[in-house]
């Protein structure tokens, strides 16, 4: 299965991240408990573990979306082979079970591998901390029953996502093995009124609650609690309705790719499977939204603090460096899910180019040059990445500003709506990473497309 390596990578990354987070928070808790000043209070440990679980859940969730997409793409490409097996008497359910079983094995191997790597990484980080004198050597055993949580979560989600992603197997008919349907028609965007309605209701309601939080925030910091609820609701609605939001966004960005043949085809390709491109980009949207959200929130927070500081200089002493450190830590933690989404994007583009061999042969025959084909693949990659990043930046900016406003709108010296702070460093990093991702994702498939012999490509079924 072509999706095995990326599947394994995604499972390993998710599990490694979860395990490393729990190990580090375990080590930090052990340190805190040993520190007489912080005391034996369980609060630090609980807080750290809760944070670790939240970030882990985000990463596992993004990993699950990536896995669903990989499996669905692989299944679409294997339709002919599945049809042949169906023709020879295998049932669709048996075919689907086989794919899910493959997912279970991939998930298990990846999760265990990730657990080992995550523990090693965590130990490495703590060793560095100790060597630099930031913390004393923790009395921590590096083995805790809680570590099973990320491992089990990754195994189960990989299994479940393989099952969900293989739904298309059921639509493959034995007749497809007999030819005639070389080109799989575009996945139909099925009418799913319930899901669509739920998504819209969640998004609208969530946004209203979020704005209410901002309003309440002008008089009380408790507004942030209302805001968080609204944020979670509206973002869930958006992720659920990704297939409604992402294709138009992709189309918009596609117009920027130029009007040449390569650009136009790239724009059309990125939208030919709306479901697939939505899933490919939504992981990136989640990562970028969260990174930007923390960046903007903290930057806006800083502005409000500066405003408040003018009023009460002594209260807010020395808060600047702490904010910088918080931004950095949160960006890395949240950015990890963007990394997993990046793996998904690379994989998705490779698979889709691989499955288009015949079409690439046709393009070469009618006069596409090698460099035009490479440019087409690069433009496709750019379209996916740029769309994901732009949507993420917009959403993140909005959420971040709402969060800061809801929390601090009522602070002395603020008391009003203030424009969002722009975290330039975070933005610069996001843009650079996006550019790197575009090139990395396009590199292998573009080279493959350019090297293809037209005769061999035309001969592919």
């Amino acid at each position, binding site marked *: 299965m072509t999706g095995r390596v990326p599947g394994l990578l995604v499972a390993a990354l998710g599990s490694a991240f979860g395990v490393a987070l729990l190990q580090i928070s375990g080590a930090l808790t052990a340190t805190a408990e040993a520190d007489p000043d912080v005391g034996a209070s369980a609060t630090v440990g609980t807080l750290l573990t809760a944070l670790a679980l939240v970030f882990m859940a985000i990463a596992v969730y993004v990993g699950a979306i990536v896995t669903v997409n990989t499996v669905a793409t692989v299944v679409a490409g294997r339709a002919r082979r599945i049809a042949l097996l169906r023709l020879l008497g295998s049932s669709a359910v048996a075919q689907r079970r086989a794919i899910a079983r493959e997912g279970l094995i991939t998930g298990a191997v990846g999760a265990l591998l990730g657990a080992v790597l995550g523990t090693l990484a965590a130990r490495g980080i703590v060793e560095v901390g100790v060597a630099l004198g930031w913390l004393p050597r923790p009395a921590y055993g590096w083995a805790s029953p809680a570590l099973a949580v990320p491992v089990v979560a990754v195994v189960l989600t990989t299994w479940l996502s393989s099952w969900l992603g293989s739904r298309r197997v059921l639509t493959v008919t034995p007749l497809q093995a007999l030819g005639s349907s070389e080109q799989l028609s*575009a996945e139909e965007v099925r009418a799913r009124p319930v899901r669509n309605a739920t998504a819209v209701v969640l998004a609208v309601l969530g946004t209203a609650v979020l704005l209410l939080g901002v309003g309440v925030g002008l008089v009380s910091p408790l507004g942030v609690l209302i805001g968080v609820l609204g944020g979670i609701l509206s973002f869930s609605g958006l992720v659920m309705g990704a297939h409604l939001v992402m294709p138009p966004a992709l189309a918009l960005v596609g117009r920027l790719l130029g009007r040449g043949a390569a650009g136009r085809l790239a724009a059309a390709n990125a939208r030919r499977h709306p479901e697939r491109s939505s899933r490919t980009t939504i992981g990136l949207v989640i990562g970028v939204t969260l990174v930007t959200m923390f960046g903007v929130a903290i930057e806006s927070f800083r502005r409000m603090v500066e405003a408040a500081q003018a009023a009460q200089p002594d209260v807010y002493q020395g808060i600047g460096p702490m904010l910088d450190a918080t931004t950095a830590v949160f960006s890395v933690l949240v950015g990890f899910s963007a990394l997993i989404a990046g793996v998904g994007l690379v994989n998705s583009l490779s698979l889709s180019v691989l499955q288009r061999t015949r079409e690439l042969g046709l393009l070469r025959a009618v*006069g596409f040059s*090698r460099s035009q084909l490479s440019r087409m693949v690069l433009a496709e990659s750019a379209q996916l990445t740029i769309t994901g990043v732009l949507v993420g930046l917009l959403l993140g900016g909005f959420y971040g500003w709402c969060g800061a406003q809801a929390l601090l709108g009522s602070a002395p010296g603020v008391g009003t709506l203030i424009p969002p702070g722009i975290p330039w460093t975070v933005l610069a990093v996001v843009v650079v990473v996006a550019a790197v991702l575009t090139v990395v994702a396009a590199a292998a498939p573009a080279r493959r497309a350019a090297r293809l012999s037209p005769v061999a490509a*035309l001969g592919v079924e």
Partner: protein
Amino acid sequence: MSDTASPPSPALVARVEDLGKSYGTSSTRVDALRGVTLGLRRGEFTAIMGPSGSGKSTLMHIMAGLDSPSSGRVWLAEQEIGGMTDAELTLLRRRRIGFVFQSFNLVPTLDIEGNLLLPFELDGRRPDPEERAWIDRLETLLGLGGRLRHRPHELSGGQQQRVAIARALATRPDLVFADEPTGNLDSRTGREVLELLASASREHGQSIAMVTHDPIAAGYADRILFLADGVLVDDRPRLPAAEISSIMLAMEAAA
């Protein structure tokens, strides 16, 4: 291009001389073509026939600049193309050669108009008024007028082949290659497609080379070349399908 041993005749639109093509290494070597020499006459509809494995597709691929020869020389009109680089061959295919394949001729993400204009777009230009008039005429002639905004998958197989023919003719290429153009069609639709190819040659002087193993299809051609085991074995003027069929049967029996 450089030294031409035997100067190309203006009556020939394409020509190969002692053409050889082999695949694989010495132990697993397969000779697809073994010294083929032939010329296609300008303005004619030529069928290249032969049983499976006779080398007819390989011959077409090399003459169309899709593949390179192992030995021998290839000309398109007065230009030698055998030693061209990939970039030069790309331009040649884009501007001077048209293709109609058995299936999967059209880019699924482009509508019919987009497919027709693809060769021009690849050159980074729009058709000039004269070319535009020709394309409009082709669209009318092939009955595509109402479907220009449709995507290929919304069209029947026969309609898709018509679009492919229109695209192949749009740039007024030196030579159109058709590779089993009716292989995926029912016989009535197949006849219509063949009639279109024949009339493009008859009425517009379009040179066409069609690779096929179907005697009925070859019956529409002005001239029929027979290939077997990588060599040219026969060269006939227009023949009824029944006679073509018996020649083919005789070839199969001899093999």
